[in-house]
């Protein structure tokens, strides 16, 4: 059984008090509780404070380009569909630079889990507005503040029939661990948007701000109903729901490719002896 010690990584270069610390701790605990050892899964990330996440634990890692983690994860998963594949990303990384990939990643429905550290700001580049920054928030680079409407990632995901859509909060580790584990155990593409206070650059959406607003979805909520989930996902402001907003089952992309069902592509040998026969096809 893996232990927390196995997950010891480099020392984080995050600001003291950053919401990322508790996500990191929770993620490690979730992996241990799931019985996953560092070499047994693949973690892909992009660029940003969240993108550095894999260096601060220990596991197979591809820390790729800003916004491009999902395509890398897609290629990896198709080449090795026996290995769990996770992605960590920031709100800019996932919803801004990588927005197109997110849309199509949801459509594909590979068995990939996407954890988004949503601090509603560009942290690493020091405080520019992100797609989830609230409209009107002043930023140094925009003379009139953020003029665009705030993106609602959960509504977007539900609209696209994403098979697992959840919201967590870095300040609620118990629930977050539950959500991470549920996402991992879910069969299909999963999104967990994690509200993550950025103590350095987001002076609006602080720990306090989130704490006053978040509430758990309880048993009376039916996460199987897409319409109900969509309505619930629109709730943002005085009250912000956390938990699993939507869950459904769609056939997995990788299940539709017959020849990778028994052996993943990465373990399939190349049979060069076939080439002669293929050459004959050119003798038209």
């Amino acid at each position, binding site marked *: 059984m893996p232990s927390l010690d196995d997950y010891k990584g*480099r020392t984080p270069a995050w600001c003291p008090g950053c919401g990322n610390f508790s996500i990191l701790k929770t993620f490690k605990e979730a992996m241990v509780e799931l019985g996953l*050892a*560092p*070499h*047994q899964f*693949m973690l*892909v990330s992009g*660029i940003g404070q969240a993108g*550095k996440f*894999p*260096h601060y634990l*220990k*596991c*197979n*890692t*591809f*820390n*790729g*380009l800003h916004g*491009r983690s*999902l*395509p*890398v*994860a*897609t*290629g*990896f*998963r*198709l*080449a*090795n569909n*026996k*290995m769990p594949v996770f992605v960590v990303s920031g709100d800019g990384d996932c919803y801004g630079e990588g927005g*197109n*990939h997110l*849309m*199509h990643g949801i459509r594909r429905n590979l068995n990939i889990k996407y954890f988004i550290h949503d601090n509603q700001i560009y942290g690493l580049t020091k405080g520019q507005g992100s797609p989830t920054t609230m409209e009107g928030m002043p930023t140094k680079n925009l003379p009139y503040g953020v003029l665009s409407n705030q993106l609602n990632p959960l509504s977007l995901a539900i609209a696209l029939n994403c098979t697992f859509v959840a919201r967590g909060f870095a300040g609620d580790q118990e629930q977050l661990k539950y959500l991470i584990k549920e996402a991992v155990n879910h069969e299909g593409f999963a999104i967990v948007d994690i509200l993550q206070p950025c103590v350095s650059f987001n002076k609006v959406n602080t720990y306090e701000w989130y704490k006053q607003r978040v509430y758990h979805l309880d048993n009376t909520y039916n996460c199987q109903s897409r319409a109900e989930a969509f309505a619930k996902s629109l709730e943002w402001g005085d009250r912000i729901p956390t938990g699993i907003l939507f869950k459904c089952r769609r056939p997995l992309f990788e299940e539709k*490719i017959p*020849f*990778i069902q028994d052996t993943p*592509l*990465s373990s*399939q040998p*190349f*049979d*060069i002896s*076939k*080439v*002669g026969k*293929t*050459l004959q096809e*050119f*003798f*038209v």
Partner: protein
Amino acid sequence: MDYTIKIGGEAGQGIQTIGDTLSVVFARSGYHVFTNQDYESRIRGGHNYYQLRLSDKPVHCAREAVDIVVALDKVSIMEYEKQLAQQGQIIYDSQSLKEKHEGNQFLDVPFVRLAVEHGGNKIMANTVATGAVLGMLGIDIEILLGILKDTFKKKGEEIIKANVDSAMAGYDFAVNNCIKCSFVSAETSKAKMLIAGNDAIGFGAVASGLKFYSAYPMTPGTSIMLYVASKAKDYGIVVEQAEDEIAAINMALGASFAGVRAMTGTSGGGFALMVEGLSLAAITETPVVIAIAQRPGPATGLPTKTAQADLLFALYSAHGEFPRVIMAPGTPEECFFLTNKAFDMAEKYQIPVIILTDQYLADSQWTYEGFDLNKLKYTDYRLRDKDLIGEDYKRHALTDNGISPFAVPGKGNYVVVTDSDEHDEEGHITEDAQMTILMTQKRLHKKMPAIIKDMAPPKFYGSDNPEIVIVGWGSMYGLLREAVDMLTNKYKIAMLHFSEVYPMPDTENFDYIKVLTEAKRAICIEQNVTGQLAHLLAVEKGFRFKEKINKYDGRPFTLEQLIGEINALIG
């Protein structure tokens, strides 16, 4: 015997079917064939042509002079009458075109009427035309009839008979009415294989153990994907249409990292979107093969035409400094074997390798006796045996030759870590100055000498001590070669052709720079406006061309055009 047939018409009229069928007939008859196509970026209408050259000797390029024009539209007559060879003939259907042409060079074949009379349906008009061409050339029709029987097997006896009768009707009509036809066809010989440039790249990839291909459609690169997709089930290759080219290359890198051979393909515009991914391949040392089928730019340019204007783009694209290899095959055979070499080098050195082709070569078909498959190389450079990989495995370990053993993740009790940031040996992010120097040197300086050694020198062909050397790269091969053949009686002429373009091969085994400096005249011939190979030779090897021939109208040279340009330059 060296005949050129040009089939012209609107998109959707079936010139492709006629052209393809004739190509197959000729290849099966054992003739050497070269075909090329010119089409517009539209599905219906406009004007396209399909040109075939057949001979009893090897042929490598298109000719200007046409022996038989099959005119399915009026434009074909207007445009190609002036291209007719001495005894050339235009066949057309005066009823369909609603115009009648007088003169010895015209043969009015009632394609539609014969189709209706013999096949019962005017859609067989193209079969009539195909039969008529064979009748004019005096080539045995049995092979065509065999092809028709195969093609329509599923559709039943009736359809087969209708097609066979239509073909016969066209054939007989030509035999009886083409009194001026003086075509003499050579003896047939052993059937040849017929292969187009992009199919050869796709086949080369498949034959190299390709397991993953992701791309976004873009002419003229798409047909590589189509070929690979046609073999996906048989060979177990995952083919995915990405949402854009950025995703395409990143997916390929993800798959490659997981331990499989991966490739993407596009044209210049799509490659423009991939360049950050190219840089990612470089710093993460993840092998990938990228095919770029060039078309004229800038931007959307001429989507279905040809150019060689992306050599320097392929070479200098992407930020940062890192090694890359550029292959520019000159023939379908080279498309096949250089794709194989591209995979081998990508895997061996853990670098991106680019295959540069263009619309002209992509869509050209050549005939061969066969490919020597013993020349294929397949070495699995990845570490897959978990017993050989310790728990302390370091993905980017510093080694003497710069190559760090690449373990496949998940086989054992180790982790494989890489980063688009500068990283240490383990693959973790670093900003350390010394490590930055070490990693840069590892990737570039340490690998480069061996990479250069692997690059084959340019091909030399022609006179031993040439006074005139014509130089080119990529799809120019066939034209240069036939130009040398045509001009060899007139001048002491030779050619140098680069298909392994970058890094420029060293001159140890073959001093091609000496060949250039010793010649009285060295002429660099390219399908671009600035002379990109000429630039590269100047920068890399200090050789400056004084004379260049550049064509940049989106159309390939014909042999006669090129010879005209060379003669004009030499005077």
